[in-house]
């Protein structure tokens, strides 16, 4: 089976971040996995959590081997976990790494993880694609993985058998896999940097599958064209992440709550969902979808209502001038929206918003910047509006909220102008180590309600992962996270290919 990606798999060391997650996910496995029904056993068959919430005892699956023959046991788990902890600065985005106190081998098949504090997302984060996945200790370099590994022996259903940098990577079935065998013999990961080329290669039958989120692998126009053509099967996942516009509470115009609130009513999300996203995504009323755990809070939706927006602005002293734009104390209502210029979709969404805002007398400038410049701007906070895409399940809500406390993130910069930002950061920190479910629910409610009331995000839609494949390819589904591609469930209907 040939899968096309714009990116090479690069270095798939499971404890680092430079490789493609989907490829890391094929080769390396975690103790537990995240599913739509919550955390499920994987390399650990079961576990117990101590009453104080600090000790996790995992009973490991027996008879599992790495593809180089090394046994998967508590010792291997400890070595891997120690190697991850030894590279702490690199995992700064993940609180959990900082909270690990020690890793203990109880016996051959029992491993104990001891945390400094109780940390509620522990199991969810152990199931992420990186970094808590296991590579054979024989692949370690000088007892560590942080400076590279000598091979990629995992326990997963696939083995990386060939890799030509920037050309292709070949994965074959792990013949000794402990779980359900994949139905395909090989997956060829082909690198094609140009979207048009990928389309043509699909038409020619050189590739069987395109898979990606948010315009990564295929843009919506192409997706629709392929859907209409009827020669391919197109599939869309359940909502996975939040697409929103960040409103900077630390910039002259948007620092006013009334302005931010008016903007919430001014944007016609329905038009964006239908006009730009072709109805493939559902309109978002709250930043995080109510389907996400802890987030079904019944927060009041702010529906499209330009009259109400105008009213709010009038009340706040933003009066319409002779030229049709609004002014307050001689200051014109101008906002700037920055987006990553490599994403054509974001520009179009921006243009829709520009015309919506014009209707209420606010001038919006749309500025596309190269990815790095866009990220640089996030850090400086020099923007009124910026795109914000959450990481999706299983990172939402905990990792997403956790990242709000990092000054290099746009979220932090946009929130820094809020009166209770200090409280917000503290609340998020406390939330992560809150052991009781009910208290956590309340804390999530407080945090998300505050953010919703302050209107620092205009929720637009909930994004979905998309796939296009040949008719012969069957069993194409979606994983719990948008970064995983479940190759192991795929098969060809007739074995001619």
């Amino acid at each position, binding site marked *: 089976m040939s899968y096309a990606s714009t990116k090479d798999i690069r270095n798939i060391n499971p404890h680092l971040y430079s490789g493609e997650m989907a490829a890391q996910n094929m080769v390396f496995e975690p103790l537990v996995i995240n599913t739509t029904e919550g955390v499920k056993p994987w390399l650990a068959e079961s576990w117990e959590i101590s009453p104080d919430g600090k000790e996790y005892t995992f009973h490991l699956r027996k008879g599992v081997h790495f593809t180089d023959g090394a046994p998967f046991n508590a010792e291997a788990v400890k070595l891997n976990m120690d190697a991850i902890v030894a590279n702490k600065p690199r995992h700064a985005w993940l609180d959990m790494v900082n909270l690990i106190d020690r890793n203990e081998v109880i016996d051959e098949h029992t491993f104990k993880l001891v945390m400094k504090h109780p940390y509620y997302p522990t199991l969810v984060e152990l199931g992420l694609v990186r970094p808590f996945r296991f590579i054979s200790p024989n692949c370690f370099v000088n007892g560590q993985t942080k400076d590279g590994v000598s091979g990629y022996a995992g326990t997963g259903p696939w083995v990386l058998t060939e890799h030509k940098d920037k050309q292709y990577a070949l994965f074959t079935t792990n013949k000794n896999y402990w779980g359900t065998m994949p139905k395909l013999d090989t997956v060829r990961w082909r690198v094609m940097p140009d979207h048009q080329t990928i389309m043509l290669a699909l038409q020619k039958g050189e590739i069987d599958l395109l898979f990606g989120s948010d315009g990564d692998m295929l843009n919506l126009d192409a997706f629709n064209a392929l859907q209409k053509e009827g020669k391919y099967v197109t599939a869309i996942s359940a909502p996975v992440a939040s697409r929103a516009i960040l409103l900077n509470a630390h910039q002259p115009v948007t620092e006013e709550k009334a302005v931010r609130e008016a903007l919430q009513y001014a944007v016609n999300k329905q038009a964006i969902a239908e006009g730009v996203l072709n109805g493939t995504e559902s309109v978002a009323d709250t930043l995080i979808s109510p389907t996400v755990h802890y987030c079904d809070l019944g927060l009041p939706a702010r529906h499209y209502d330009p009259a109400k927006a105008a009213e709010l602005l009038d009340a706040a002293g933003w009066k319409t001038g002779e030229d049709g734009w609004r002014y307050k104390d001689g200051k014109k209502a101008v906002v700037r929206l920055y987006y990553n210029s490599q994403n054509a979709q974001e520009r179009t969404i921006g243009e829709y918003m520009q015309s919506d805002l014009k209707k209420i007398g606010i001038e919006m400038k749309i500025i596309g910047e190269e990815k790095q410049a866009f990220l640089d701007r996030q850090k400086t906070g020099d923007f009124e509006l910026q795109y914000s895409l959450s990481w999706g399940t299983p990172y939402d809500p905990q990792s997403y909220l956790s990242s709000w406390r*990092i000054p290099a993130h746009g979220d932090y910069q946009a929130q820094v102008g809020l009166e209770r930002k200090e409280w917000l950061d503290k609340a998020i920190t406390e939330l992560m180590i809150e052991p009781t479910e009910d208290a956590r629910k309340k804390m999530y409610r407080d945090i998300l309600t505050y953010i919703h009331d302050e209107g620092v995000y205009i929720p637009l839609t909930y994004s979905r992962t998309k796939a296009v494949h040949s008719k012969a390819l069957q069993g194409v589904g979606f994983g719990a996270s948008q970064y995983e591609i479940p190759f192991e469930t795929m098969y060809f209907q007739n074995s001619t290919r």
Partner: protein
Amino acid sequence: MKTYILHRLLGTIPLLLVISFLAFMVIQLSPSDPAEVAVRVNEIVPTEEVLELTREKLGLNKPFLTRYVDWISSAVQGDLGRRYVDDKPVAQELAKALPPTLWLAAVATIITAVCSIGMAFICARYESRPVDYLLRGLIFLGTAVPGFWAGLLLMWLFAVKLDWLPTSGMNSAYSVILPAITLSLTYTATYARLLRNSMVRNKQSNYVLFARARGLYPGTIWRHIFRNSLQSTLTGLGMSLPKLMAGTFVVETIFAWPGLGWLCVTSIFNRDFPVIQAYVLLMAVLFVGFNLLMDILCAAIDPRMRNGSQQ
């Protein structure tokens, strides 16, 4: 001749130094913090602690001039630093990407040479006849069509519709055909025009008239015209190899050709400064080197040039 070559060789050193300095400086002027770029490109959250570690590791805490001197002195010894993306040596990555680009550029040069000479010959032979107009129209189109569009059209026709060639990648010997044709389009058009005009001019010179009067075979006369017309285009053709190599960005990206152009484009998007610096330096060396080679060749053919330069 020896002194001429030595003289010219020595002259390139300050030129290359200036270029390398400019390349280094321009990249340093970029608003992005290199340490942050290096961290971010590996999807690590840039905390102050990590940034400090990275700065130290990359030597970014040293003054600008010290860094330049460090860089250029290692570059002379073949060490171009390490990539931010995966910490691999830049020199090794360039060495890996160079052969595919050279191969592509070489095939494109051959196609350019064969097609432009052939077209120029036909145009000059049938000057102001329909076939001349037709070819000149095609040449005009060739110059005007953007590379990415032409590439995709060729891919659609030959790979998808006719199913003769693979769409992209470097998997078989045939893979080079489409990218090479795409790459050669503009150059073919330019050189065909140059050569045609030169041949048309030569056709009207006195030596052709005398040759006709002497009753030489038309074939022989055309050979003379062709040889005399080549000189002006030769320098251009000689420079076309580095130009082709520097111009492979678009073609390599479309055709997933793992060469220098693609490496450079990804490095620019990732702000992988060590690679960009090395690429600029490499291109400067290529251009200066080929220019020098062409000058020496011309000097070898025409002694007037040697004397001229020594005065």
